[in-house]
């Protein structure tokens, strides 16, 4: 089928592009490991509040770090798209019969791989330091966070195509990064905070993914939180893919 072929061709193109810049592979892995090494001890010393039982700090923290990795792996897509528009690559590909969704998915799938591979490494290392994970739940959590990566990647491509300028994209991404990550309880569960903060979190789609990820790693798979997490993330991914494809249809310098 042409669509599958084109998607795999674009995926391979993007994967090669990444493999030729090993510095990104290194930072993709070193950043989460630094969080584990430098931030986890801080958490350990404040443990004891609601949602952060002492002795289980890693069980709460690792899903958060993985969600942060998913966000980071996806949000880089827009930069490359702008550069590809400026050099005429997107224009050339738009004149071929290739599907625009396939073009978008090439980048999205690469970003999912660039999330999943270091994620597995981080999980393995965390287990060595006392992270208790439920295997079935862990697999489902990776699936959920892969969908989160896909949403971020597609949205970042759409933003890049729409904004056209690296500077504007950087402003928007750094502008949304802080509220999105803090209000999803990535670093510290929102249950530690005041009520108004928890209310604000409910307006953030990432919040549901992070909450579901914590349930899943704990092995509680059939909770409402997990169901809502999957529902919200799937809807966000579908919306972002639609937005990204539509942007590719019109991409113009």
């Amino acid at each position, binding site marked *: 089928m*042409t669509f599958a*072929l*084109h998607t795999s*061709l674009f995926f391979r*193109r993007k994967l*090669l*592009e990444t493999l*030729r*810049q090993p510095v990104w592979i290194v930072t993709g892995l070193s950043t989460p490991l630094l969080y584990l090494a430098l931030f986890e001890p801080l958490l350990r010393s404040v443990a004891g509040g609601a949602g952060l039982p002492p002795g289980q700090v890693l069980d709460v923290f690792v899903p958060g770090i993985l969600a942060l990795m998913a966000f980071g792996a996806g949000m880089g897509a827009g930069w490359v798209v702008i550069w*590809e528009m*400026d*050099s*005429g*690559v997107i*224009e*050339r*590909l*738009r*004149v*071929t*019969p*290739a599907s625009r969704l396939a073009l978008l998915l090439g980048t999205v799938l690469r970003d999912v791989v660039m999330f999943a591979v270091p994620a597995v490494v981080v999980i393995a290392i965390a287990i060595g330091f006392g992270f208790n994970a439920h295997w079935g739940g862990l697999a489902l959590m990776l699936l959920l966070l892969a969908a989160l990566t896909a949403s971020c990647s597609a949205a970042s491509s759409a933003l890049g195509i729409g904004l056209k300028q690296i500077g504007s994209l950087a402003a928007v991404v750094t502008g949304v990064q802080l509220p999105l990550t803090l209000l999803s309880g990535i670093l510290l569960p929102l249950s530690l905070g005041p009520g108004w903060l928890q209310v604000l979190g409910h307006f953030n789609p990432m919040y549901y993914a992070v909450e579901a990820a914590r349930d899943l790693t704990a092995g509680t798979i059939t909770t409402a939180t997990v169901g809502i997490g999957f529902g919200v993330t799937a809807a966000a991914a579908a919306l972002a893919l639609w937005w990204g494809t539509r942007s590719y249809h019109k991409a*113009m*310098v």
Partner: protein
Amino acid sequence: MPVTGSPPDAVRTSGLRKAFRVKNEAVEAISGIDLTVAAGQIFGFLGPNGAGKTTTLRILTTLLPADAGEAFVAGADVRRSPQQVRRRIGYVGQLGGADASATGRENLLLQGRLYGMGAAETARRTDELIETFDLGAFAGRTARSYSGGQRRRLEVALGIMHRPPVLFLDEPTTGLDPQNRANLWDQLRELRGTGTTIFLTTHYLDEADQLSDRLAIIDHGRVIAEGTPAGLKQRYSGDTIDITPSLPPAGLPALEHDLASDPFVRSARTSGGSIRLSVTDATRAMSAVFSLLAGRGIGIRAASFAQPSLDDVFLRETGRSLRDAKEKVPA
């Protein structure tokens, strides 16, 4: 499309219009473009920056929807069957389009597969193009390391990977040195020899003149002249005379003015130490000019029948020289 025995025109448009919003104001980039390009020729689309060349090209290559009018490319309707158009055309954009993080070979292999060519056929064609465009020495390096000329060759090769019947090129020689420019011209002529229709935009007078079989001149979103380069120059410029009188430069404007009022002279302009006259009848004008100068005792250093250029055509139609025509809209 008319069903006849002859092949369809490579490009046919009528009433093509497109406006862009610039600061909340609609600015027409093209206002009613009618074009017919017969198959198998090199068609030049000449005009100053901002005239609407790129906008027209983007509509023809399915990148941009027109506001009004219709366009058929290689027999397919650009609006109704964009996928058919895409399969039948090649495109080399102004920005280039080579993927700098992939090697030349990888660029070509991907392009072939996207057009539905099989893996073996794509590999064969890639080798062929690497040979034709002399890319062999660096086809295994990422395109980031290519020189301007090397990159342009790769980009033209990408445009014809799937042997399209119609190839579009947007300002293909901008930024190339004379050597690379001449090579590209040769390659495009060879391509025409294989039956490919070539539609190229340019703002270079000599490129339009020497390379195209037919050309259209566009200004402010309208086609202002169309024909063969020789025919256009003949039709619009008629005859041109260059006169270099033995006068100090200060005396030239007055003489230019007097010459312009001669009935055989259509227009006169001074450049350097000589006066260029566009005339209706060169022989009679020449003798009228000689007697006017003799009557005033002005000697003649040089007099010649000048070759008219496409710039004379542009000048006659717009009152401006193409060399200093300025940008109108950012499109």
